[in-house]
């Protein structure tokens, strides 16, 4: 089962710190490749905190790890701003030329058991085409 969610990207000091040190570290990956979901949405998907989710829309898809939110926001999810979230951001902009970093729409579903969290090297090779 898949849920259609709105995703807003956010800043996180720990992720920022990890990214400054290395884009290629496990630490940066674990702080970036995640999606923070409302308790109800997590239950709706039948997954637990830490399990892998496939997040997909017309722009692209990534496998990231689920995080239980401490806050309540059904239908709304948050991802740290990162190469992972940018896989889902369209390059279409509003009139002022701003892309929708904070207005991503995507379908979220449990990832297949064999699917690992998307690696940054995979993202780079997709970008390089």
């Amino acid at each position: 089962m898949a849920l259609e969610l709105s995703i807003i990207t956010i800043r996180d000091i720990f992720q920022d710190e990890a990214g400054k040190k290395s884009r290629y570290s496990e630490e940066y990956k674990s702080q970036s490749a995640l999606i923070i979901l409302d308790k109800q949405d997590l239950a709706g998907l039948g997954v637990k905190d830490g399990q892998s989710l496939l997040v997909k829309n017309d722009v692209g898809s990534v496998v990231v790890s689920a995080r239980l939110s401490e806050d309540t926001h059904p239908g709304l999810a948050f991802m740290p701003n990162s190469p992972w979230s940018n896989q889902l951001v369209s390059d279409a902009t509003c009139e002022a030329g701003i892309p929708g970093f904070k207005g991503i729409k995507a379908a979220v579903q449990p990832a297949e058991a064999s699917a690992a969290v998307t690696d940054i090297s995979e993202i780079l090779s997709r970008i390089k085409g």
Partner: protein
Amino acid sequence: MAICTGCSLLCQDIEASVSEGKLTKAKNLCRKGHGHFQASFSERTSPMIGRKQVDLNQAIARAAEILRSAKSPLLFGWSNSTLEAQRVGISLAEKLGATIDDTSSFCQGSLMESILSGRLPSCTLDDVRNYADTSIFWGADPSNSHPRHLSRFSYYPRGEKRQKSYEEERTCLVVDVRMSATAALCKENLFRVSPGGDAEFIEAILSVLAGKIPRVGDKKKMIELGTMLKKTEWGAIFPGPGLVYSLQGNMEILEKLLARLNEITVFKVVPMVGHFNMRGFNELLREKTGHINRVSFKGGEIVHGPEQSVMTAAKSCDAALIVGYDPLSSLPFATAQALARLPLIAIDPHRSLTTDAAEVVIPAAISGLEAGGTAVRTDGVKIEFEPIIEPGLPADEQILKRIMEAI
């Protein structure tokens, strides 16, 4: 004393020393700043052409060659460079007839434009520390983005007129879609907006201030907010990316709110710029061209508009020089893809997706830590600094000058 270029607060009270490739002393740095200093020891770049190690002179020569033969090059990044380097960058764009743009283009540009042109009343953060009794973080989460904002300026310090500070004299409010780390600090003063609902929320404030019943939000809470705003003696609003994105860059409604608030009391707006010298670039380019970003010098003429933004130019240019930024990590997938297809020149102290996809990589000293210069703090205060480490690497400014000479 050292300076931290980890964010646009440019904290000047850092005591840091480095020996044997390690940070041995670090006082007053926040976690983000500490990460920034630590990062100087990891994943540094070296000169490369086509992924092969070369010497610096060869890399600079190749960069000059690419730019010289390009018909419509794009020069992008700039927010993490000193004013001195930005000035050379703008001259280089002029000389090449290139398009030049910075990170404000897809983020805080419209807000910066409003502030620099005086449509939004602004002040320094020192004024905030001395006078503000109400600080409003709007779509901003300084606890994560500008960690020492509250302690140095907006909430905790005992300013000239605010000796009783946060215990009695200062209130901090958050307008956000979520319970951010900053919102958690001032819980009962979190005003939640729905995603994209900030314009409506501003309308609701204007209604309350006019003594009308607001159409959106919790009516009782909105009336409370109206009362808090009216009681404010000296207020400051700190709009973050959340607000700018939600308003889709349309600042008129925010300008209207500020005009109304200033009929009642004093309210100022101070931006929350991310990178340490984005504002510096915006000011410099504006002085030179009348525009803060998105400028083309093609054919010796100054053209400004969405066509000149990195989002569009990435697809229309035939080469790009990227300075101190990682657009392949930070921009939407298709824009990153468009950039990766070009001959890219990356001037950067750190390895990134962009340097890994670049035709030419030129290592640079880290401004603040390894190179001195001048930068403009998020509130417009100019700050000069000296390096604390001598890495033997050229700064952006020197590299750009050498590229310019070679062209």
